[in-house]
């Protein structure tokens, strides 16, 4: 049973560029959340997708956008990259419509903005 997968593993971009990160949820899961983890800090919630719609959003600017596909996979897009966007981006999947369900995390994508 494949767990949560993310691609790419590492990415280096220049300030001002745009980036797309991808996530495939664990089999049977229909909900995908994205988190940003800066070096030495805990993850911060970006947003969550359910039924192809953004269900909840954290305190991130509109430069951060996402999408969920009919097969439940998801993309995170970041426009106009800033140096401060350098971080580990984690995708987590879960099942169920309410809170309290275990969120299974992927290995993350390390984004470096130069």
């Amino acid at each position, binding site marked *: 049973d494949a767990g949560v997968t993310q691609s790419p593993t590492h990415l280096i971009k220049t300030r001002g560029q745009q980036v797309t990160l991808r996530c495939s949820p664990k089999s049977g899961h229909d*909900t995908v*959340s994205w*988190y940003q983890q800066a070096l*030495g*800090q*805990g*993850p*911060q*919630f970006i947003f*969550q997708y*359910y039924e192809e719609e953004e*269900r*909840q959003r*954290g305190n991130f600017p509109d430069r951060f956008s996402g999408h969920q596909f009919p097969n439940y996979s998801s993309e995170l897009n970041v426009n106009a990259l800033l140096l401060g966007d350098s971080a*580990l981006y*984690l995708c*987590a999947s879960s099942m169920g419509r*309410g*809170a*309290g369900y*275990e*969120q*299974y*995390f*992927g*290995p*993350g994508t390390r984004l470096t903005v130069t």
Partner: protein
Amino acid sequence: AQTVTQSQPEMSVQEAETVTLSCTYDTSESDYYLFWYKQPPSRQMILVIRQEAYKQQNATENRFSVNFQKAAKSFSLKISDSQLGDAAMYFCASQEDSSYKLIFGSGTRLLVRP
């Protein structure tokens, strides 16, 4: 606002001994969930243990147990018979029943001495 605080940046334990990691949280809701996640150097976040706030009984998972003090808003993790494989970053997280996002603390790095 929902907050999670981990006041121990780093802890050290001798192999086979017991260690307790501290966590305090704040929430205005009466229904919520608490979690401990482990993040080894491989970066993949793994759920260690989960506690529902309405349950008074402390959760246990093999060598891992929690001390949930609801009135004090405290949620500590006890690791018994520590093993080398327990070395990792440990994050405490909370989730309100009305929300889908996990709020993480800043983490505690656990070192295990052979």
